[in-house]
């Protein structure tokens, strides 16, 4: 745990809100508090980085080369539009 005088928020609270924070679901003062905490706390920063990298790997699964058959099919569709 690493709490500085500037921190109004503790590690436990950051961890509890971390996934929503990374999803962009926390705004305003709470987000600013977590931002400040992550600047000072190596443990929470490492955890946040790990979760960011893992979700980047998950998100990358949503990108595949479109198969040639699909490309031809889409081209045929758009010629009809």
């Amino acid at each position, binding site marked *: 745990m690493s709490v500085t005088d500037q921190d109004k928020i503790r590690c436990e609270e950051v961890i509890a809100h971390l996934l929503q924070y990374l*999803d962009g679901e926390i705004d305003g003062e709470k987000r600013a508090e977590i931002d400040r905490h992550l600047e000072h706390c190596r443990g929470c920063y490492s955890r946040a980085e790990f979760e960011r990298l893992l979700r980047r790997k998950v998100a990358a699964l949503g990108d595949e080369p479109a198969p040639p058959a699909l490309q031809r099919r889409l081209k045929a569709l758009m010629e009809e539009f």
Partner: protein
Amino acid sequence: MTAPWPGTPGRWEAGAIHARFAPCLAQRPAMTLSSDRAFFSAEIERLAGRLYGTALRLTHNPADAEDLVAETVTKAWAALPKLADRNCFEKWAFRILANTYISNRRRPCEVTAATAAEEDAQGQFSLFDRLHQPFLLWWGNPEQELLNKLLREDIERALAALPDDYRTVVVLVEMQGQSYAEAAEILSVPLGTVRSRLSRARSLLQRALWEHARAAGLLPHAHRREHVRD
């Protein structure tokens, strides 16, 4: 075609689509139609890989994924005049894809109460916590080491193993970048349900990756010794 995606061969082939959407396409003025076509073609060409990849994660089947993309593209073209801000095209197209997948599912694939209760009883699983047990903290950067070793197919398998409702919410939020509120609207469920499904989905996903890492010998040496003692 395989469950849960009930594809209908021929339904989304070019000729069938033309007949289905001809009335709304015919209403566009010629100049608008021409600029619409240019914009739409460029956007679909740009997004084709991501639309297909997302469809593949949802359907688990390449043929079904292609059908889903074709249906999405057709619906998007028909609805394009209703899109007020074309800067939002990408997110809008992915919403159509998700909505189409959900509405075409043969039946709702609801997570059983037993599955949810079991996951809740085990508590939120954190891969980071597993890799950072206090007596192992001397071990450099175990989480980075594991992330480097995990292959795309390892994560793909863990995602595919999630119950359909859980996987869908991960696809909406993590792949498509939809907000919780947008995901709730697409899925027609309360916001709290999106939060709980996402939380359980991530827990299950990380648990599956941990178990795979153990089985495949991907963990740092100290972790492997620890589990010999288990």
